[in-house]
């Protein structure tokens, strides 16, 4: 026999039939059904195959603690969700659900061979057996195990759904809307507190939903709360994590319960900061541990009551009860009242409250005290149970089509534990309950251990006369952990529950042991002969139930994963076919290919244009800091290696910035606009870091200095105009600045206008050619750029990208911080001794330049490399060796940092960091690359125009 729909009862809407499918077969249920209740009503008892042994499994529970009935739901392309609990899936027309971990079908599963081989799969089996040899694990064992032992399939297509997220604040957050949570909300409703009441189910009520006597109260209460302006009710919302300072993460399911995929968010992530939290999560009934307790049809007695009273579904024609707790008796009395015949009440206790005995007698239910189930008959569903009289050890059979377990209650302390509240053990409950809070939080109702279900006996497992090695009594249904596994772990020397947990995997499945932790603890406690509190308790961690990556990611995916910063000139580059790259969140034009050009051809053309006529480059991403105040020069003098005090207004200086450890962290050309005002530039990626570092020194080391720092990176568009014709392009557009070589030398700055727009005009060069960098207010960037393009047309002005910029600077030996340096390179290592003010008494990093490690010989130093075959462009990052004939593993003495084809030189060039490199000039080094080891001559790093003649024109 199996489950069926009762004639009356339940909160389902019998006027609204709902058609859905499970494993391709069509079923009908009613609005208000869960997938579990609807399938149960259709007589389906088999919901899945277990993780390790592929044993047939049915429902254990009716709520989110369900360990067995994990199913997948397919809502169309890209909308496949595995590992949902059938108890939490609301049915709707067209719902397509599937069982998991079975092949070829749920009823006939080849993996079930594992079950018969079960004696070969003890605790720690995977660790012991498959770890050697290591190579077999990756190629043979793991793929095979993954195929056979597993949860649902991971979705393969991109998720087309959108997910919302929000922050919320409230005075009082109540988590769990059973009677205790609703009472808490009603009690606070008339204050002026902002209250949020949330529950993971589709309607408020919790346990009251299974108690028709409470329905009138529930209806009144829900109406009162709904009408209260200061109460926000969130249903279908799971509080999955409790974080510092009453910060709670919750996911609200918005559309999965509706028939159509809608153009609205599927789920919403709530991040709630609450003044006070009330946890009313309730308690979870404990299964009992005995041979065959995982047979479909064996379930929690409280679940059977939920199915009958909330959903109008009987779990069987003649269920029997196996109890160690009074609550099971009340459950089967309720079932009897709902019209379900009870075949027997079996209780492990020798005596129970006489009122229970009287009620059982009145209902005509046979009672077996001091008895326990020692065997379950039936494979895909219970057909009978064998019970043992503990008085005389005789076993006899009771025919029944379902067996209800009432093993006592476990307070749901998950969120309390997330909040780092302490727990105390209560012997009479056989459970941990909340003790001292760590946040402003209280627990009420079942999760505080406060319940009126009566009392019970606390046992580890039901006694049995059977050979212990022959039985399968499950503790963790989802991870297939048996009592025997836990005892084995103890025999093998594990003492702490943390170790026993990891060795057996008890409580480590997706349900985090909601139904198994306490039974596991009791069994370990008995095996170790120590009280439970002495063997510890494993930690609960978020999430309370699994949540989708979609909800956690929200909008932060695809193009919105991180912000893309664009310059004012970016739209021009886009319109002119630029190929882009991301540099520190900036989108930068890498090169501008003409029709038919590949990158190599485009970059060569762009480089030639700069060296022969004029090129134009968007340098707006350069970091910029305005340094202002009477002590500005003194401040920069202390920060940078270079001397700044003597720099005249109107002049520029290359600045080198070290960290206090003496290593290069940033560089850039900066200008003195006035005695008390500097315009600093930093690398594109270093802008925020440098400003932070400068603020740190200014605020905390030298607060006496009168200096103000302002980021102006986004205030200026910067256009670099580079090449022998640069001045000619600029001259007609600029007013108020004498551009002649005499009046405006290299490394100078002038203020005036360009195209009528105020400009800070730098005469600087990162290419080795005559060059200008035109700073204009950001909004005018593209307009000025277009004027320059028009003016430069007669010189065939050529836009160039970051790739050509890299080649041009490398030809001149200009370093890129972070590419030619790596955080362990000093100014001397980089050949930048000239940028260090020798006479300065102090600057950031100066003392470290005399550290023993930094003055020791053999440091990696920046050198140039010219390959013996000029056509070979070395790979950046390639390792360098002195002797290519040495045995492997070779001694690597450095690596290539920059490497390009130089069209100007008609050959390849490279820079490298090599140990003792400065003393190797003229020598030969070897660079092993895939296919061939290349040789190269060590040179200086300035490959082009070493005298700098082209700059000063």
């Amino acid at each position, binding site marked *: 026999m199996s489950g069926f729909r009762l004639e009356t009862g339940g909160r389902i809407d019998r006027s609204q039939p709902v058609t859905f499918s499970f494993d391709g077969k069509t079923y009908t249920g009613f609005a208000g059904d869960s997938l579990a209740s609807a399938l149960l009503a259709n007589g389906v008892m088999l919901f899945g195959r277990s993780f390790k042994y592929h044993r047939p499994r049915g429902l254990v529970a009716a709520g989110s603690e369900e360990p067995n009935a994990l199913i997948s739901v397919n809502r169309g392309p890209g909308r496949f969700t595995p590992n949902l609990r059938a108890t939490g899936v609301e049915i709707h027309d067209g719902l397509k659900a599937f069982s998991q971990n079975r092949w070829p079908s749920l009823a006939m599963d080849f993996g079930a061979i594992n079950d018969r081989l079960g004696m070969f799969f003890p605790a720690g089996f995977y660790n012991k057996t498959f770890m050697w040899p290591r190579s077999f694990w990756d190629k043979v064992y793991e793929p095979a195990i993954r195929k056979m032992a597993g949860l649902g399939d991971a979705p393969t297509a991109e998720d087309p759904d959108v997910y919302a997220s929000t922050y919320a604040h409230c005075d009082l957050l109540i988590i769990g809307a059973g009677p205790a949570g609703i009472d808490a909300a009603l009690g606070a409703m008339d204050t002026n507190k902002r209250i949020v009441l949330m529950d993971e189910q589709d309607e408020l009520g919790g346990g009251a939903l299974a108690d028709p006597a409470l329905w009138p109260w529930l209806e009144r209460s829900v109406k009162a709360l709904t009408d209260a302006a200061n109460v926000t009710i969130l249903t279908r919302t799971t509080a999955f994590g409790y974080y510092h300072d009453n910060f709670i993460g919750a996911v609200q399911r918005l559309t999965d319960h509706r028939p159509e995929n809608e153009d609205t968010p599927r789920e919403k992530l709530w991040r709630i900061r609450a003044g006070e939290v009330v946890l009313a999560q309730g308690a979870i009934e404990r299964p009992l541990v005995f041979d065959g307790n995982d047979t479909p049809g064996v379930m929690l007695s409280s679940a059977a009551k939920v199915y009958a009273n909330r959903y109008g579904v009987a779990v069987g024609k003649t269920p029997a009860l196996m109890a160690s707790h009074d609550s099971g008796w009340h459950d089967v009395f309720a079932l009897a009242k709902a019209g379900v015949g009870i075949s027997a009440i079996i209780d492990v206790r020798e005596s129970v409250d006489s009122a229970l005995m009287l009620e059982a007698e009145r209902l005509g239910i046979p009672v077996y005290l001091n008895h326990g189930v020692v065997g379950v008959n039936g494979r895909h569903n219970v057909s009978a149970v064998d019970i043992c009289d503990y008085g005389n050890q005789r076993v006899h059979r009771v025919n029944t089509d379902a067996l209800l377990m009432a093993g006592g209650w476990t307070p749901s302390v998950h969120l309390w534990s997330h909040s780092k509240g302490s727990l105390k053990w209560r012997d009479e409950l056989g459970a941990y309950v909340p003790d001292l809070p760590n946040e402003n939080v209280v627990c009420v109702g079942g999760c505080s251990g406060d319940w009126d279900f009566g009392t019970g006996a606390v046992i580890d497992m039901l006694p049995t006369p059977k050979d212990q090695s022959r039985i399968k009594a499950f503790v963790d249904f989802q991870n297939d952990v048996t009592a025997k596994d836990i005892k084995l772990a103890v025999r093998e020397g594990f003492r702490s529950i943390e170790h026993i947990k990891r060795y057996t995997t008890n409580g480590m499945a997706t349900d985090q042991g909601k139904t198994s932790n306490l039974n596991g603890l009791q069994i370990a406690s008995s095996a170790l002969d120590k009280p439970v509190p002495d063997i510890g308790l494993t930690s609960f961690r978020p999430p309370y139930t699994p949540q989708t990556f979609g909800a956690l990611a929200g909008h932060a995916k695809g193009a919105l994963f991180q912000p893309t910063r664009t310059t004012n000139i970016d739209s021009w580059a886009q319109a002119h076919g630029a190929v882009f790259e991301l540099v520190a969140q900036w989108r930068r034009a890498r090169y501008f290919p003409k029709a038919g050009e590949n990158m190599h051809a485009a970059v060569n053309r762009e480089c030639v244009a700069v060296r022969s006529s004029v090129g134009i480059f968007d340098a707006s991403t350069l970091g910029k800091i305005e340094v202002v105040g009477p002590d500005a020069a003194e401040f920069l003098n202390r920060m940078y290696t270079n001397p700044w005090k003597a720099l005249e207004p109107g002049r520029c200086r290359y600045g080198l910035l070290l960290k206090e450890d003496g290593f290069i962290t940033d560089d850039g050309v900066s200008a003195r606009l006035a005695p008390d005002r500097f315009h600093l530039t930093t690398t594109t990626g270093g802008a925020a870091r440098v400003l*932070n570092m400068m603020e740190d020194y200014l605020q905390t*080391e030298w607060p006496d200095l009168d200096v103000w720092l302002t980021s102006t990176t986004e205030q200026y568009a910067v256009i670099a105009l580079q090449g022998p014709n640069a001045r000619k392009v600029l001259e007609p557009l600029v007013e108020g600045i004498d551009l002649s070589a005499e009046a405006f030398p290299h490394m100078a700055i002038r203020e005036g206008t360009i195209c009528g727009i105020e400009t800070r005009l730098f005469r600087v060069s990162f290419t080795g050619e005559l060059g200008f960098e035109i700073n204009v207010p950001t909004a005018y960037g593209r307009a000025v750029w277009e004027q320059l393009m028009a003016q430069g047309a007669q010189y065939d002005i050529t836009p160039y990208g970051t790739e050509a910029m890299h080649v041009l600077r490398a030809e001149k030996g200009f370093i890129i911080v972070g590419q030619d340096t790596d955080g362990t390179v000093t100014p001397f290592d980089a050949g930048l001794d000239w940028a260090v003010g020798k006479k300065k008494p102090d600057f950031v990093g100066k*003392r470290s330049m005399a550290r023993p490690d930094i003055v020791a010989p053999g440091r990696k130093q920046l050198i140039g490399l010219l390959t013996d075959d000029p056509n070979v462009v070395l790979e950046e990052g390639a390792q360098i060796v002195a002797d290519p004939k040495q045995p492997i593993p070779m001694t690597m003495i450095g690596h290539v940092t920059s490497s390009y084809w130089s069209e100007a030189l008609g050959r390849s060039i490279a820079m490298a960091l090599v140990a003792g490199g400065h003393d190797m000039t003229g020598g030969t080094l070897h660079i092993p690359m895939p296919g061939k080891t290349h040789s190269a001559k060590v040179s200086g790093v300035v490959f082009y125009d070493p005298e700098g003649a082209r700059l000063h024109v």
Partner: protein
Amino acid sequence: MILIHCPYCDEKRPEIEFANAGQAHIARPLDPSGQSDAEWEAYLFIRANPRGRHHERWRHIHGCGRFFNAVRDTVTDKFETTYKAGEPRR
């Protein structure tokens, strides 16, 4: 997410507005060139790693931008107090 009290804004604000800046009360020597290698090494690299009360610097980087000092318990992750840069160690 922890709430941190900024002593300059005098408000408790979410952790994501702040950046940790390492151990507090390590003053840069006034004359680094007069430091022995061992002294300089201690200043640069040697840091406390206490179990319990820890003095550290934070910056209200997405707020007022100020650096300040804090006492945080490394076991409970709770802030005991925060105070302005330059004020005596608490």
